[in-house]
């Protein structure tokens, strides 16, 4: 055998396609997962938003140039929750794969560890995007007024947000050793991230109501910035601060995940006895 010690581009691409295809295949076989990914935000949109549209007045604020119905306001937030849930679910799948032993097989593939994790992250992001577009179709069917060009302009923002949320999930999967613990962790991560953000209401409302601690937490929450990045992108606008927060969070989370899965330094190798 030739002395091959570096990763060739074709091998790298093949690995990425194999891992992504497996994730898509698994999603396709888990119709319930796809269904629940649509039902969750649809319920928020059809029930919660319908009930609250006359309670929560939305003033004109960027990126909007006129008054908008509440249903329009929460669509980027609901896309955010689709991405958030799927990002966490991909990590849950990693914990499951680790318990089932399949993770060992993946980690002993002749690909660099950082690249394998990146492939897993990318595969999870692909699933997130597919589910986000499925939700957008639901929005279209119930005549929510989202500019059609936004479907295209929001794609890079949704991808970046999906990668960031997936990377946070990867970090969690390093430190969570069992599936049961992961369910609890999801509750402590998903709900605070979702509710302490601009997904359901503009965060100036928090400031106005005097909830300053929640207001500042929302400002610091990377999920807020993921939602705002998507919201602006739907209208062809670029939110630099949100982009910077999401990009930096992605890089930092990925660095922690790679370190966590590194057999020389990571928590996976140090904590667990086989």
């Amino acid at each position, binding site marked *: *055998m030739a002395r091959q*010690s570096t990763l060739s581009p074709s091998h790298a691409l*093949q690995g990425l396609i194999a891992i992504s295809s497996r994730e898509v295949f*698994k999603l396709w076989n888990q119709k319930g997962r796809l269904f629940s990914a649509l039902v969750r935000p649809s319920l928020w949109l059809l029930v919660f938003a319908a009930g609250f549209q006359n309670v929560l007045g939305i003033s004109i604020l960027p990126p909007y140039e006129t008054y908008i119905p509440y249903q329009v306001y929460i669509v980027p937030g609901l896309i955010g929750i689709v991405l958030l849930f799927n990002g966490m679910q991909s990590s849950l799948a990693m914990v499951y794969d680790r318990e089932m032993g399949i993770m*060992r097989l993946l980690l002993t*593939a*002749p690909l660099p560890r950082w690249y394998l994790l990146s492939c897993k992250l990318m595969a999870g992001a692909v699933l997130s995007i597919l589910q986000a577009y499925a939700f957008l179709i639901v929005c279209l069917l119930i005549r929510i007024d989202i500019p059609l060009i936004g479907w295209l302009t929001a794609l890079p923002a949704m991808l970046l947000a999906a990668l960031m949320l997936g990377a946070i999930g990867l970090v969690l999967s390093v430190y969570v050793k069992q599936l049961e613990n992961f369910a609890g962790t999801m509750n402590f991560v998903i709900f605070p991230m979702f509710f302490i953000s601009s997904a359901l209401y503009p965060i100036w409302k928090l400031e106005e109501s005097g909830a300053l601690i929640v207001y500042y937490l929302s400002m610091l929450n990377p999920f807020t910035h993921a939602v705002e990045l998507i919201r602006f992108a739907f209208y062809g606008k670029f939110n630099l601060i949100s982009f910077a927060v999401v990009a930096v969070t992605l890089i930092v989370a990925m660095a922690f995940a790679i370190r966590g899965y590194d057999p020389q330094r990571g928590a996976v190798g140090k904590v667990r006895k086989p």
Partner: protein
Amino acid sequence: MKSILQVSNAEKAYGEKLALDGVSFDIPAGHFVALLGLNGAGKTTLFQLLTGLFAADSGSITIDGFDIAREPVAVLARLGVVFQQPTLDLDMSVGANLRFHASLRGIRGADRTQRIAKELDRAGLAAEDKRLCRELSGGNRRKVELARALLGNPSLLLMDEATVGLDPASRQTLISEVRSLCTERNTAVLWSTHLVDEAETADAVIVLHQGRILKYGPPAEIISAAGADTLANAFAALTGKDRTNNG
């Protein structure tokens, strides 16, 4: 003869507990070496180090000339592994599992199809290509895992207690198949087990106990050195256990 695997003074601890304590040995090409030890001897830890899942605290591991700490990708490209815990995706077909693994190893196109067909044929599972792994018997699942491990034409095949859960006939078939790979393909095999009878036909046996190698050599040599009449008795004498552990 060329050494495929060289382990030199490998150590690994979990907190205060030393799981491997200065382990050193070589395995030449085409040799079938049994790693024999009781539960908790350190066999699985050693396999974790050989597969790069964990890193050794000290010492070095070289496979086919590559150091696992410095060139893990090159090492993994030369390894075939069957883990103690089943690692097939049961919701995928036999063929899909093999194609997934081949892709991770950079094997593609006609070469991939050919290798998969060859390994399934060798395992007698050519007709099972489209069956879900969930529908296979335990023995056949192991055969698929072996076929998968061989897709990359490994220089070194690691079998980690691969017969756990198999009936005696399936166990014997698997051992014979792996044994034949040594002569047919010149593959070096490290076969981890706690069952003495699985080690009796090995070219050499490593007796691992409490993280240390007590003996390494051909079965006859180990029997003679222990002043015993069988490998089972030699193993019992070396580890200080009675033969009820021997399986």
